[in-house]
């Protein structure tokens, strides 16, 4: 029998310093555009290059709406001289319209132990792959008291990816109904926020919030594991929220 025990020990600790410290390892995040100052003419060209409408032309430059940005990189490559500023951060989780419903009780109850049920409502597979990385030794969410559970009866948080296809609408509602109160919903990926590239269409609802109440939104296509982790920490009030849009005025600080 191969000595797996020794192999495990030899590998050592790989775990990210996040959330105690920022993780600066290269490649942990695809990054995303930041609102950038441009003159009106350049701003128009850049906004037009965005295929999803995430870049919004503004008098002083280009604003970004992260509910639509899919990191297609069309605003930073092949644009000639003007390119959008590009951040390498990952603390992207933002509060949804339902954020206040459970008040601060949620942290008191679940601050140290939280069970998560993942649900695929039509995601392309990249979101699920990133969510699956949460359990790998680099991210190791167990150290934070987060556990993945296969049953909604045990779950405190429903982590949903995908635009909610017609066939997944009822399974999503049933899963949500099966979870005991108090509970929260984290929608991850732009598909789950706005329908992403799949739209609202004849077959997809165009976001989780169209079907069940959503507490935390994590943009990204897909959001990297650290962004999902930020969203989960936000859902239990263990970190500060980010915003879903970024305006040019905010870059001046």
């Amino acid at each position, binding site marked *: 029998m*191969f000595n797996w025990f020794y192999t495990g020990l030899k590998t050592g600790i790989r775990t990210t310093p996040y959330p105690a410290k920022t993780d600066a390892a290269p490649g942990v995040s695809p990054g995303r555009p930041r609102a950038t100052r441009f003159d009106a003419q350049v701003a128009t060209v850049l906004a037009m290059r965005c295929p999803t409408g995430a870049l919004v032309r503004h008098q002083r430059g280009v604003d970004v709406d992260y509910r639509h940005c899919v990191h297609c990189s069309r605003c930073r*490559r*092949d644009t000639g001289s003007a390119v959008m500023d590009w951040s390498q951060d990952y603390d992207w989780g933002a509060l949804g319209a339902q954020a206040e419903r459970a008040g601060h009780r949620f942290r008191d109850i679940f601050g140290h132990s939280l069970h998560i049920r993942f649900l695929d409502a039509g995601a392309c*597979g*990249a979101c699920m792959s990133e969510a699956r990385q949460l359990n790998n030794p680099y991210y190791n969410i167990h150290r934070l008291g987060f556990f993945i559970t296969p049953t909604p009866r045990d779950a405190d948080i429903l982590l949903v990816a995908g635009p909610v*296809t017609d066939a997944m609408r009822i399974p999503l509602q049933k899963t949500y109904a099966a979870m005991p109160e108090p509970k929260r919903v984290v929608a991850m990926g732009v598909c789950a926020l706005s329908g992403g590239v*799949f739209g609202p269409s*004849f077959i997809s609802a165009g976001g989780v919030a169209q079907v069940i109440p959503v507490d935390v939104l994590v943009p990204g296509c*897909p959001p990297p594991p650290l962004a999902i982790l930020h969203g989960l920490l936000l859902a239990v009030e263990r970190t500060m929220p980010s915003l879903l849009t970024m305006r040019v005025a905010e870059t001046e600080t």
Partner: protein
Amino acid sequence: MVVAAVMQRPSAAWQELHRICPARWPEVSVRTDHTMHIAHLMVTPTTIRPVCLWLFGEAEYHFATLVTEELDDTWHLTYVFYDPACHGWAYVELQQPLAQTSVMSIGDTIHAADWHEREAEDLFGLRFEGHPKLGEFVLHENWPEGVNPMRKQFDAHAPFAYHQQKTVWQPPTIVEAPGAFIMPIGPVYSDFAESAHFVIETTGEDMLRVLPRFFYKYRGVEKIAEGKTADHALLLAERLSGSSAFAHGFAFCRAMESLCETEVPPRARVLRSAFAELERLRHHVSVITGICASTGLAVAQAQGAIIEEDFLRLTAQVCGHRYLFGVLKPGGLTLAPDEQRLGLLRERVHALHTRLEELHTGLRYSSSFLDRLEDVGLIRAEVVKAFGLVGPVARASGSTADLRKLFRYGAYEQVNFEVPTETQGDGYARLRILFREAAQSMAIIERLLDDVPHGPVSAEVIPRAGAALGFVEAPLGATFHWLRLDAAGRVQRYRVSTPSFRNWHAFRVAVEHFSFQDFPIVLATFGLSNAECDR
């Protein structure tokens, strides 16, 4: 070590199609396109079946895809076949008025076409005469009969209210033995699993019959692509299946380049193939990790997951995105990585592959692990042929088909590599294939990066009206993308035939008559994607 490009010549059998077919069926006419190596066989409603059966049965062509198109007032059905022995394609083309919705089925004999016909019936309202099982397939019970979303007059963007209908689905049962019951799995199941449903009929231990039910994730990609520009449709192509994003984007770009007769610059050709192999490596590591997880081998799972995450980080460092989104564009690539990044890629891929081989050694010496895989989930060579299976699943059962080797597209004509095959067809054979293919991918990347040509990474693509097929060997097997543009350069029809759609068809065969605890293991060794299947 760039070997001079040698264009493969189609075999004599393909050259003879234009004489053989009209001689056997006087109403069939053949037009041969010698530059693209395509024989267009124009058939009539009565000859479609005999011609297809002859191609598949006697001429030993492989079935690639069925493309259904509604153009003006005519149905255009294109059955795409290719000869695995050579570089030749046969497009069996049928045209009939829209009012005539009945077509002779080939799916009862060419099993590979079975699901293609069921899909066309569901989405277009065509009737395939003689097909043994038509009806609810892509669209589930809460979708009304007679509403066919792929028809031209159907508006894809209006939110459709039919999901409100309260209908109940009763799984069809066959097993009548004493004590028989149904074990339902999904659509929401396991820790992290894509949405799919499996009806397992059993009397206790053995899975007597397994009925998979898919298309929970049907996002109507082919429909919503219509009317978009190629640039926007590429976003959809990349997001058909996040785990094989580059391969599908690559196939889409190849369709576009083939249609617009664009010559991709040498530097982009080499880098595209290198990135495609990088994706294949990461994909296979992910499937291997899943197999370790399915058997509960925790340390091996953690080792695999570390390697997978390292590949994701490496991909982001070299290409700017962990899943290679936004790297491709028709005509080439959007980014030109500098020598330093390519050097990093070469060095890191080699180091990661060494660790993968260590994992392989560990698994080979873990008898408790091997016991769970050996002789489990058997796929025999006849099943590969009948179902037209592709990719690692087929190659673990004796198939040697690999589009990279058959058609030598992109930069694959410049490198020598092996197509590994195994003959046992069990779970362990599939695991060995994954490791062996990963080794080949690593070698291909090294050889390609040894000598990357200089120059631009993209060429201009001038859209033109017409249709073309793009194909690549995705990590899970052959994928075929059919793209038709109108005069304004907008997508008129986008048809995607994916390896998961193919291989899920035979999954039932692999799990039936094994016991319950083998189910997750067979599922993991297939390693298929539902997003890719459902689209």
